[in-house]
Structure formats: structure tokens, C-alpha cells
């Protein structure tokens, strides 16, 4: 299988990031051995609950923090350790959209300045006029039209949805190949959320962009992504096409996660749902031995506790899960 695929745009292998807790000095294994590829033009979703390491993974990919172990390759080149100028070149090609559109913009910058800043940092655009063109082009691409209405506004004069459009325009203006979007719509009102996601999807298709879409929201991930990786306490426990992962989940954690999602359909009111999971997420300072999911798994046996941790293995074409009992359950 793997041999047929073209070289991935982004390839992450055995990536780990451990932190020392400020109090007590316990070792926090936030990301604990994560591998995945993102193809050109592909949207990979990274889903999981708070503390599963999905945000840290995104920050590692963006090189905002260095990894404890593992490699990151971009366009075939290893960029895990690289010079400042190589890192700067990488950041032109890989851009990030942050969760909070209220905190990710300088309140004293007008929209024009917000969009011009990446151009001046990376010395893109020949002069004032060309840069202004690029700024207007980026605003048009995210449908903030007519652009004159927005150029001179400050962030506080924009709605949450408009800000996230500006943030998207800012990330597009350098013509990146990869966008890392960490919960880009979770702080946006529901009626606007769908609008922003549709706009991002449109831009993604039109430009053939690759996306790493990080979210806890399985429903929007299903809409937005081609493939899904499910993270649990620092590891990917299942990865496959969005359809396989949602409709034919193999790992018991994915099954519980999918089952827990509320659907806007009738008939749920009078039922107490069987969630097929127990307990709470363990702390990343005390990751259970064996399969890290075993204490919460309703199918776990002594093997799951005692034997080495199961690794991702094929459960279907292009679909892998890290569970040794997936066939029986």
C-alpha cells in the first residue's frame, strides 16, 4: 500500500513531547509516540478529548516547540532540527490558524496591518502596491467583501466569524502548502460555524491545500476531513478514512467516542445511553501500563494490562487501530 502513495507533504514519525510539571516535577507525556502522513491536498483530522495531546502535536508540527523524540519531514526533507533560516522557510509553507480569534490578533493592528505583517516578516511582495494587492486578494478569498469595508477595521470591530476569516486570510497570504488549524470554529456561534467551515473547505479545495484539522468535535471533523486520526492520552489509537473511523470504528475508544456524540435526530430524550466506557481519562503523568486504554475499556483482558502496548495495525484497507482484540469485540 504505502509504496503506491506519492511522497507525503508532511510525515511525522514517533513524535514525542514530554514536559516536566511545574509542581512536583512529574513527567507529563503529552505526546508519546505519534506517526502519521499528510498527503498533498489532503485534510487529516486529529480528534480526541482534552489532554490527549492533539494541540501539542499541532504545535510540534508547526515547530513552535521542539520534540523530545521523533522526526518531522516536510516535502521529503527532515526539518526536525534545522537552522533558523530553514525554519523560517518552513513557516512560510506551513501556517497555523488558532482557536481563539480574539487572542490571536494584535488589538492595535487594523486588518490591513494584520495581513501585511507576514508579508513584511518574510519579505514577500515588491512594494507597497503589490502588498496591498495581496492583502485585498486574501480578503476576497475568505469572502470579506467588499474588501474596503474591512481593511481599516480593528479586530474589536469584527464579529468572531469575521475575525476567523481574517485569521484564515493571514495564514493564506504567504501561499502555504500546509495549514494547521486548532479548533478554528469552536469559539464561533453555531450559525456562523458552518459558514466558516464551508469557506475553509472551499479554499482548501481551490488551492489544493493540505490541512491538519485539530478538534474535539467529531461531527465537524466528519464534515471537514478526508482522514481521521483518533488520539488517546498521547497516542494515535486509530486512523483511517473519516467514513471508516466514524461508521466502522475498530478501537473500543473510538467506538465510545462516536457513540457519545449527540445527533440532531428524534428519539433520544427518553433513553439513558450505554456509553461503553468507564472512568475518566488518566493523567498523562501516570499513563497505564500495557494498553493505555485498558482501565477504561469494557473489553479489556489480563493480556491488555500485561502485554506490551499494541501498535497500530491494519484492520481494513487504509484503516489501522491499536487494539489486539478488535476482531473479537
Amino acid at each position: 500500500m504505502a509504496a503506491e502513495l506519492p511522497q507525503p507533504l508532511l510525515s511525522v514519525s514517533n513524535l514525542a513531547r514530554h514536559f516536566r510539571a511545574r509542581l512536583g516535577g512529574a513527567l507529563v507525556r503529552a505526546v508519546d509516540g505519534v506517526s502519521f502522513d499528510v498527503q498533498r491536498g489532503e485534510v487529516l483530522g486529529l480528534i480526541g478529548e482534552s489532554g490527549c495531546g492533539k494541540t501539542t502535536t499541532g504545535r510540534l508540527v508547526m515547530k513552535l516547540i521542539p520534540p523530545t523524540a521523533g522526526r518531522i519531514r516536510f516535502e521529503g526533507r527532515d526539518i526536525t532540527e534545522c537552522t533558523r533560516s530553514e525554519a523560517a522557510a518552513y513557516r512560510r509553507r506551513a501556517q497555523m490558524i488558532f482557536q481563539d480569534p480574539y487572542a490571536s490578533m494584535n488589538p492595535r493592528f487594523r486588518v490591513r496591518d494584520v495581513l501585511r505583517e507576514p508579508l513584511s516578516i518574510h519579505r514577500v511582495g515588491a512594494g507597497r502596491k503589490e502588498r496591498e494587492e495581496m492583502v485585498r486578494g486574501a480578503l476576497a478569498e475568505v469572502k470579506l467583501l467588499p474588501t474596503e469595508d474591512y481593511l481599516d477595521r480593528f479586530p474589536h470591530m469584527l464579529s468572531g466569524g469575521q475575525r476567523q476569516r481574517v485569521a484564515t486570510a493571514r495564514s493564506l497570504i504567504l501561499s502555504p502548502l500546509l495549514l494547521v488549524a486548532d479548533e478554528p470554529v469552536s469559539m464561533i456561534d453555531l450559525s456562523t460555524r458552518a459558514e466558516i467551515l464551508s469557506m475553509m473547505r472551499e479554499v482548501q479545495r481551490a488551492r489544493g491545500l493540505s490541512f491538519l484539522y485539530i478538534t474535539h468535535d467529531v461531527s465537524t471533523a466528519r464534515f471537514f476531513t478526508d482522514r481521521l486520526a483518533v488520539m488517546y492520552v498521547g497516542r494515535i489509537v486509530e486512523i483511517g478514512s473519516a467514513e471508516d473511523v466514524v461508521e466502522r470504528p475498530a478501537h473500543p475508544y473510538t467506538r465510545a467516542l462516536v457513540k457519545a456524540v449527540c445527533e440532531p435526530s428524534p428519539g433520544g430524550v427518553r433513553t439513558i445511553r450505554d456509553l461503553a466506557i468507564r472512568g475518566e481519562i488518566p493523567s498523562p503523568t501516570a499513563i497505564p501500563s500495557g494498553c493505555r486504554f485498558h482501565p477504561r475499556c469494557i473489553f479489556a483482558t489480563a493480556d491488555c494490562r500485561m502485554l506490551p502496548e499494541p501498535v497500530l495495525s491494519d484492520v481494513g484497507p487504509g484503516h489501522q487501530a491499536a487494539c489486539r482484540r478488535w476482531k473479537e469485540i
Partner: protein
Amino acid sequence: MADAVVSVRDLALHYFTRRGAVHAVDGVSFELARGETLGLVGESGCGKTSLGTALLAMPAPPGRIVQGSITVDGIGILTMGEDELRRRVRWEKVSMVFQGAMNSLTPVLTVGKQMNQTLQRHRRTPRNEARSLMERFLGMVGLPADTLDRYPHELSGGMKQRVVIATALFLEPRVVVMDEPTTALDVIVQAQILNTIKELKKELDLSLIFITHDLATEAEVADRLIVMYAGRIVESVPNEIVFSGKACHPYTRMLLAATPRLHEKVSDLAFIPGAPPDLLSPPSGCRFRARCPVAFDRCAAEPPLREVAPGHTAACWRCG
């Protein structure tokens, strides 16, 4: 409704800002039946939280209830003074789980100490009696008794939310208003808490007002939905009608279409173009008119909330 626990008539709650009065709730009437879970939905700023606070006669400053009446258990609460409200209404008859309340537990007191403060203000209770009462309610929300001796930072988000729910319940009010009680929680925790809320409702014979922007959550808990838009109720409709796609008001239908479904891959999500009107000066006619795909000349006059089927009302000229 003979068995209504809450009855709201022509209520208006305005916020008096420097720029003028914001008509957050602007002429709202509804009833909550005993044992019913009423879902209150709408976009941010539609007035759903303001309406929730009105049920405790406790609008957030600079808000004031400027018109209308609210009766709880047959007693009018808007004519009461602060003292009487505290003694007879708040937490005694109506309690509220505020949005984000789980993050406003004080970090310097144990769960038991802060719950006890609430208890002692309402009912002087000897120490061991108080302890067993609190333990009983923590048990009901699925927390072990020793949670009382723990500090908030030792608890997960889901556990803190359970503490807040227990604190809203332990004086055994008739009505509980829950404002986005599961929004900030992870999916699995959210599903667990929704299960707990359903169990509690049965056990304690509660009537619930469940406020959220998320229709998918309402599908899971609400017997009936009240859809608000720009300070008004636009539709009051049974759960099955909404979620089988038979709601009548275009706004309700568009909200549902904008709610993503997990088991249905769509190439495009529907959305509601535009933004709600400025409530400093609400527009004349139907307030949804500017964003409505089926608006016509009649919408220049505001449609009243009319019955379109038994137990189902809508404010739209296109309905009924």
C-alpha cells in the same frame, strides 16, 4: 396550563447601557409544565441566558426586568423584594447552573466548605446532617463522598460540573435552569452528564429549562423546544417535530440544517447568512425578515405567535 410550574407573561428584560437600552428579552410568554424539560435555543445574543436569569428575578447588571410577570408554583416573583426572593425563590424553588459555573468554584475552599456555605445561608443545618445531605446529592450526581474534602483543582472538568449540579439541586428546588451545562466538556463526559441529568430528573421530579445553542444536545434532553430570535420566541415546538424535520419556522429549520450530523456525510453544511439585528433598536416587522429566504411583503408586519398544531406555536406568516 393547569399544571404549569412556571408561567411567564409578556416579559421584557432590557440592559441599560451608555448607548441605550438593549432589548435582550422583548415580550416573551411561555409556560413550563411540571416534569417537563424545556429546551431554550438560539444564537448568541438571542436572549436565552437573559431569560434564564429572569426566572430567578436576577438579571445581570445593567439589566432590568421592565415588563411582564413570572409566576413559580402560582406565586408571582417579580413583585417580591430581594430578601423575600432569597428566602422563598432562589435555590428554594428555582436554581440555576450558570454557564461556566464549574470554573467559578473558589480554589481556596474544599468542595464541602463551599457547598455548605450555600446550604447554611438557606437552612441552618447541624454539621453532620449537612455532611450527609451533601454526600447524598453528590452520590446522586455520581461522585464519591470524599469529593467533599477535595479542592476544585483536584477534580476534572466533568467532576466540577457534577459538583455544580449537585449544589443546584440539594435544596430540592422545583425548577432548575441549566445554561450550557455541557458545552465546555468533552464528548464522552458530556454524554455521561446528560445521562446523569436524565436520571436526576426522574428521581427528583424536576422541571428543567435547558439552555444551549446546540440543537444536537437538545435532541437528547428536551421534551419541547423554545426557539428564540432577537429577544422573541419564534417557535415553541415538541422535540419529535423539530428533529423529524417538521418544524415550521424557517429559522428553526435553518438552525437544524446548520447543525452537523455525524452519520451523514454532506458535501456542504447549510448556514444562516447574515447576523442577528442590533437589539438597541430592534427592526420593525418580523425580526428574522432580513435573513429569511422565504420572506415576503407581509413580513413587514410582525407575525404573532400562533398555534399551528396542538402544543405547537410559531411566529411566521408562512406557518399554519
